[in-house]
């Protein structure tokens, strides 16, 4: 487990370098669209009064100075399927964002929505050498967490300490400086497929930018779409994207579970395409303009021009009623939501004190989705939009940009992870010297 440790430390250093330079890029490589944002980091900046941008949730301290989106190419289920196509799309988005920002971006933070995330809860416990908890002890207790077998070809994406316990007191956010005998911690470990991640990294390398961090799309979407009390009391963020749906559960401001369903809006489009025998673009347009999940009697009379440019006049002039369209869409949407329901059940979501569910992501804009989701997932469902951040173009404030905005927050204020602490000294050869020093100090 040292290797991801080293890799993540390197990315942290990159992030620090980017902070010093003041400009960092955000890249959300999704199945449907690729969004690139350019942030100007200025920790002392405060949002203007009356702009609706708050101070407290961590969205201060940076400003979006450039944004570019493009239709994603060569990505399926959030994973790279055609590298050169993806690279071109990334270049398109990055260049547009750089052009708007009028600055070049050298460091980019990425989010990964594919790769089949799996989350593990770890626990570790150490006896304190001193009665006061020091930084060193945090590192030791994090290193003492027993790591399960995460499987071959998988690597650690997040390793966040979510809870600390000192003797009989638990729920400590920051135990440093407190006194006790035994320090225990719970850590949330998120692993992804190495191949999926390295493909994305390879894509970035070919675009001449350095990777300054990588985050799970489900996690960052939750960071931006859940409001503070939801994060505190327990909520699930369902980020329904084009090719995959991310599920993340938050409580006490920490993510405790994340998973992804490899289904999304593209599958709905594919169903329409097959059902109506139209091409994918036409199906996408019909879904966007006329889609829904609740059919009423009025919808029987709403006839939709299918359109198309096949050259066959009869084929291009077909009409279909909106009920038929809804009849195609609804089973697939239900399937997605039921898969999500399964993941939530597996995670024990019903045991949380508050069971708020927030739907976000591009496909959450389907009309009537909240009503359907309320039947399948539970009563407390709302549609979430990302937090307001400074300088974000109006067009990029929709729910499709939750992950991108969350990644901005992640870039400005990343949560402490396992690799933010030094490795315990026992692993270093300097240990003997330190022990000699300690002996010297104790005996003299």
């Amino acid at each position: 487990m040292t290797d991801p440790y080293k890799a993540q430390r390197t990315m942290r250093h990159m992030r620090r370098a980017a902070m010093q330079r003041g400009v960092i890029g955000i890249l959300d490589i999704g199945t449907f669209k690729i969004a690139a944002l350019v942030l100007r980091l200025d920790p002392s900046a405060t949002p203007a009064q009356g702009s609706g941008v708050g101070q407290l949730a961590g969205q201060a301290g940076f400003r979006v100075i450039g944004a570019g989106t493009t239709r994603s190419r060569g990505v399926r289920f959030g994973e790279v399927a055609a590298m050169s196509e993806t690279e071109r799309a990334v270049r398109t988005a990055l260049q547009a964002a750089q052009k708007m920002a009028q600055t070049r971006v050298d460091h980019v933070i990425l989010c990964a929505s594919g790769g089949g995330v799996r989350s593990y809860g770890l626990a570790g416990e150490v006896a304190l050498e001193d009665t006061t908890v020091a930084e060193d002890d945090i590192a030791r207790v994090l290193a003492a967490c027993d790591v399960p077998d995460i499987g071959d070809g998988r690597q650690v994406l997040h390793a966040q300490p979510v809870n600390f316990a000192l003797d009989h007191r638990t729920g400590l956010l920051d135990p440093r400086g407190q006194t006790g005998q035994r320090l225990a911690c719970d850590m949330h470990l998120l692993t992804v497929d190495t191949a999926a991640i390295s493909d994305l990294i390879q894509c970035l390398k070919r675009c001449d930018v350095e990777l300054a961090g990588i985050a799970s799309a489900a996690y960052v979407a939750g960071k931006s779409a859940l409001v503070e009390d939801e994060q505190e009391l327990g909520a699930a963020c369902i980020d329904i994207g084009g090719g995959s749906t991310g599920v993340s559960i938050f409580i006490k401001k920490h993510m405790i579970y994340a998973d992804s369903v490899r289904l999304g809006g593209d599958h709905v489009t594919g169903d329409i395409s097959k059902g109506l025998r139209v091409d994918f673009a036409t199906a996408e347009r019909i879904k966007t303009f006329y889609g829904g999940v609740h059919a009423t009697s009025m919808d029987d009379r709403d006839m939709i021009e299918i359109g198309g440019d096949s050259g066959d006049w009869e084929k291009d002039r077909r009409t279909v009623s909106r009920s038929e369209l809804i009849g195609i869409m609804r089973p697939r949407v239900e399937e997605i939501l039921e898969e999500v329901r399964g993941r939530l059940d597996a995670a024990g979501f019903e045991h949380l004190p508050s069971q708020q569910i927030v739907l976000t992501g591009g496909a959450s804009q389907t009309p009537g989705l909240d009503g359907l989701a309320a039947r399948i997932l539970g009563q407390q469902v709302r549609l979430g939009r990302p937090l307001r951040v400074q300088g974000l173009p109006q067009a990029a404030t929709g729910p499709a940009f939750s992950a991108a905005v969350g990644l901005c927050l992640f870039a400005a204020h990343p949560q402490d992870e396992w690799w933010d602490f030094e490795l315990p000294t026992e692993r270093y050869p300097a240990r003997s010297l330190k022990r000699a020093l300690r002996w010297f100090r104790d005996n003299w």
Partner: protein
Amino acid sequence: MMRFDPPISRAPGARPSLRAAPGRPLPGTPRVNPFGAEDYSRAPDPARHPERHGARGWVAGHEPGESVYADDHGPAARAVGAGHARPALAAHDTGPRSARFGARAGPDPRASHGRAGQSAPGRAGTEPNAEVPAARSRARWRGRRSDRDPAPSRLTYRLNRLWLTPAVRRAVTVGLPVALVAFCVGVVVNDPVRRDAVNAIVKDMHTAFIDRPEFRIEGVAVPGVSPELRAAVEGRIDVAFPESSFRVDLEELRRAVIAIDAVAEAELRITGARALEIRLTEREPAVVWRDRSGLHLLDAEGHRIARLAARHARSDLLLIAGEGAPEHVPEALALLEAAAPVTERLRGLVRVGERRWDVVLDRDQRILLPESGAAAALERVMALDRAQDLLARDVAVVDLRLPARPVLRLSEGAVETLHSIRQMPE
């Protein structure tokens, strides 16, 4: 024919009515569609390009119930979904071409497929406006490559990033022009022939300027002095008039004029009458100094003024003689003042051994004065003279070189007379 008007007001989140023609962006919809990329920074203003937004042509021309897609230029909505099949068109690009796509009202590039259907019977009557947009779209499409990849090539991308690097940008926008100008100037200057030509031109212009009549000095005027001094001053001024005032160094001329002995101070100015006016302050002669070469006039500080041809020309002045006398003219004048009672008899003062004064009276009487306190010693002699008529007697020398021990030397006749008187029997 009924005119179809799409609803204009609608709640921002509301689903668009099916009756609305999808070709026209409804008020309140964001300019970006979530299904294709738009360039937010340069999305076109619908108010500025009304003709691109389907305000006429296919939307206005169709009737309710008729398909809005009947026309062969695809309504704009097709471009919305077209991102899937042709990401090239919906994606970002720079330039006006993508702006047209951003408006979602550009005619479909594949309109030519559908144009075959235009000859279908019964369609021409329903679409009176079909020909005009078709022609327009053909014209618009001729110059554009429809299937171009919007993604920048690696080279373009790298060059773009390079251009956005501040150092490179500054070097190109500032450094390069400066270097270019410097290089051109260097090339021009490096050629001696050109340099000489430029120098000659500059010199000519300079000469032409300073030779203007406004700056010319016609002559020199020395008002209020004697003709000899004027001649001497004019002889010293080595300028060929008329001359430009830029070429006349007044300070140097002033030094030359002051070098004349008779001139104490000189003030030079160029008057409005284009003349160089020299105002002189002459030295006042105070004493006449005789040395081996002849007679000279000195002022009160001992500065030489001029040669004097004959003593009687300035018999009113004191005559001094001896080496080193000019350096002590003020002392001599003080002695003259002390010797006021015998002014008529005073022949002159002689500097002896460059250290003390002798006062010479007529009848070859001399008063030898000490080095210091000469005036006081002379006043003692004057007091003696007043009391006892000392100088009227037959005394040759009154020696006061040692003030404590004054010595009188009688003339020879007086000595003999004194002897004879002493030897006379009582």
